[in-house]
């Protein structure tokens, strides 16, 4: 488990790597919900004035005809025009890559960004699409039955590794 303090260090390091990407007046866009929490922290670390963007990719998922619509779908909001703009796309966990594929599709229905830079807190194995992050907080070698769970309790961020077979917290190799 990573607590708020450890995560703050990770997020600060991510912000430094993002600063090195030399983006021009980027718009920070978080994927609902974990990505949006992280995006808010990164935006404040980077001192970006522009309002935060948020995406709920439910309408762009590739499993709609199988799984149906998420009943708690929220409206996406990109406060600035994305045409010719640099974007920092933020999510909590990069796993199969399908969420990022859906997010990119949604972004392009708003316009044609100059560049999209992907920042994720946790990168884990299990990619099903050719997608990789530009900035990673931590690469965790999770097994298939393990899940990284990002939570926000009254502004306190935490990351737990859960075993989906037992429902318990799991120990993972690799320290912060």
């Amino acid at each position, binding site marked *: 488990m990573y607590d708020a303090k450890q995560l703050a260090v990770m997020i600060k390091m991510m912000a430094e790597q993002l600063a090195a990407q030399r983006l021009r007046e980027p718009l920070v866009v978080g994927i609902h919900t974990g990505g949006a929490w992280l995006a808010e922290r990164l935006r404040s670390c980077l001192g970006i004035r522009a309002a935060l963007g948020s995406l709920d990719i439910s*309408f762009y998922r590739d499993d709609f005809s199988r799984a*149906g*619509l998420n009943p708690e779908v929220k*409206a996406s909001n990109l406060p600035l025009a994305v045409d010719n703009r640099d974007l920092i796309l933020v999510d909590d966990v990069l796993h199969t890559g399908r969420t990022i594929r859906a997010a990119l599709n949604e972004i392009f229905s*708003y*316009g044609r960004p100059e560049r999209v830079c992907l920042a994720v807190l946790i990168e884990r194995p299990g990619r099903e699409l050719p997608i990789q992050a530009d900035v990673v907080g931590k690469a965790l070698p999770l097994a298939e039955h393990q899940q990284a769970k990002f939570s926000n309790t009254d502004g306190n961020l935490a990351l737990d590794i859960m075993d989906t077979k037992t429902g318990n917290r799991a120990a993972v190799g690799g320290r912060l």
Partner: protein
Amino acid sequence: MKPLDQLQFDANGKLKHFLTLSGLPKETLLGILDTAESFVSFGKREIKKIPLLRGKTIVNLFFEPSTRTRTTFEIAGKRLSADVINLNAARISTSKGETILDTVRTLQAMHTDLFVVRDSASGAAHLIAAHLPAHVRVINAGDGRHAHPTQAMLDMFTIRRSKGGFEGLTVAIIGDLLHSRVARSQIHALSALGVGEIRVVGPRTLIPTEIEAMGVTATGDLRAGLRGADVVIVLRLQRERMDGQLVPSEQEYFNRYGLTEEKLQHAKPDAMVMHPGPINRGLEISSAVADGERSVILQQVTNGIAVRMSIMATIMGGVEPRP
């Protein structure tokens, strides 16, 4: 055929058709309104489409004329990336003697995924839903005097956007309740969503006697009906459905029940005025009220797109695969 209010659910209790609001719980209605809220912003995007129903085929099967309902269903389907086919069925097959089910089966043979049906016979959409394969969906776009559930949902959406919620609201529905499928669906929705009071107002000849069993109060006095109302819904006087002497004269109807600025004074100062359209100016509503600042009639039309998108998305997801 299964009982009407069970036909629209699958074995897991998930909504699969949208035929009537009768029996739909509050949570289902609120879910549809919430999802519609997230569709509102799509009209302002550079690309107004989302890929949810890409590859699906929707047939708008209208056995009765319609402009706004058919058009907003068409736009809703297209914004969800479906292929939409409009059939003014009143003019085609049925005039050649084909039955409604034969028409539907023919269209089904062309791999339709969703039928949006309007017919002058009550129960038409149910009949069609009961005779289609499990993966095909049906939306009732108005059947006879029975129901017009998508219209009622867009009205609920418009009320919630304007009033913030439903609790404690006094709603007056005025006019031709007898022929109005819209009013029946509205009463189901308003009751489920828990408004304070529902009043129906009109001449005795146009108020069905059984309507008070739906939990509404009926009155023939427009001023009493309007007193303290937050929401005023004016119904269309359905001249094309009047086969007897239900209204003495149009002038007398307007004098007694037509909504004018003077009569509207009896409602709350911030009362909103709604009408499902198309309006008969100078019959059930004066032009000054219809075009006035309290009227939300055009917002109702706009909201119809987002609400119909939401209903399509709600019933089209998680469909069992084609055989």
